[in-house]
């Protein structure tokens, strides 16, 4: 009896231990997942990625003046990479940003727009000058030697690549996020091309204060 009952008793206790152990695992996993999501909820700015966006660069603006990252400090900056031969997402973004700034009232002067060309071969300072003047916002348009542009794009984790067209021309694939940098040049938030000017303005009002 005892022999046969021992294994019987052992089996439930093994099951119990295994269940408790599994339960602990689930709890630990749950806590870990919770922590991960809580961090995510803080936004990209609180993560390592946020800290890594932005950096030193030296480019030329639409008036031919040299501009570095430190020249952009002291104001909030909305940084967008694009090119003037882009017919759709770039004009949309620059127009939306201009309209968003118009909603900031007195705070408008504390925010600038930075348009960095990923197509420096075609986007000379002169080309950029007439291009950005068509939008309402205070846009600093930057270009420069290809390696200087590449350096700036690398700082901002921006991808861009030339895509040849059948007619011999080319388009540029490029990251279309808009980075919100604080007056100290720190990455704070990002807008996507789907964000409307109203959405951008609402978020900017909270950030700029």
């Amino acid at each position, binding site marked *: 009896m005892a022999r046969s009952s021992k294994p019987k008793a052992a089996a439930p206790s093994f099951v119990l231990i295994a269940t408790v152990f599994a339960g602990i695992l689930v709890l630990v996993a749950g806590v870990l997942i919770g922590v991960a999501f809580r961090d995510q909820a803080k936004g990209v700015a609180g993560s390592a990625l946020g800290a890594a966006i932005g950096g030193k660069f030296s480019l030329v603006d639409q008036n031919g003046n040299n501009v570095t990252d430190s020249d952009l400090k002291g104001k909030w900056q909305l940084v967008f990479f694009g090119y003037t031969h882009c017919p759709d*997402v770039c004009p949309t973004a620059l127009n939306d940003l201009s*309209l968003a700034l118009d909603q900031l009232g007195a705070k408008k002067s504390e925010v600038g727009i930075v348009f960095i060309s990923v197509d420096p071969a075609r986007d000379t300072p002169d080309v950029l000058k007439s*291009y950005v003047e068509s*939008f309402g916002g205070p846009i600093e348009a930057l270009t420069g030697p290809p390696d200087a542009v590449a350096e700036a794009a690398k700082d901002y984790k921006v991808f861009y690549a030339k895509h040849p067209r059948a007619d011999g021309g080319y388009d540029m694939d490029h990251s*279309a996020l808009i980075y919100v940098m604080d007056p100290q040049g720190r990455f704070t938030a990002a807008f*996507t091309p789907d964000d409307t000017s109203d959405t951008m303005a609402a978020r900017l009002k909270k950030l700029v204060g």
Partner: protein
Amino acid sequence: MRSTLLALGAGLMLSCSAAALAQSGDVAITNAWARATPGGAQTAAAYVTIEAASGDRLTGVSTPAAQQADLHSMTMDGSVMKMRQVDGIDLPAGKKVTLKPGGYHIMLTGLAQPLAAGQSFPLTLDFAKAGARQVTVSVQTVGAMGPAPQAGGESGNGMSMPGMDMPAHH
């Protein structure tokens, strides 16, 4: 894709007959519009809404307003914007297909002149079944996200405020 309509000046303003033509046959084309180009821009995007009652396929486009006109898709691959030329756009029977910012567009390359708000230009659309159809594209503001308001709106005739390049609300 090269335009055979190289008529200058007057050729840019054939509106009434084109509008009538656009409604004939099996394909209805409405809301042909484009954005004014920012200064110095050599490309532009034009958009239309097409409904093919029994299904068709848009196979090509041409216009005297640009050296080249192509059908393009615009897609987001993660946060990366990609434009690609496409051979055609399928038009399912009875379903409106709208080319619009952030989606398919008619890419105009090598503009004969900048597009200014209030202007218009002819655009020929080639369909697999319905053949060639011409429409008049009205040019909206630089940042417009859609065609001008239709009848009932304050600027429904598309002729108001020529030359105004103010950003548009959306």
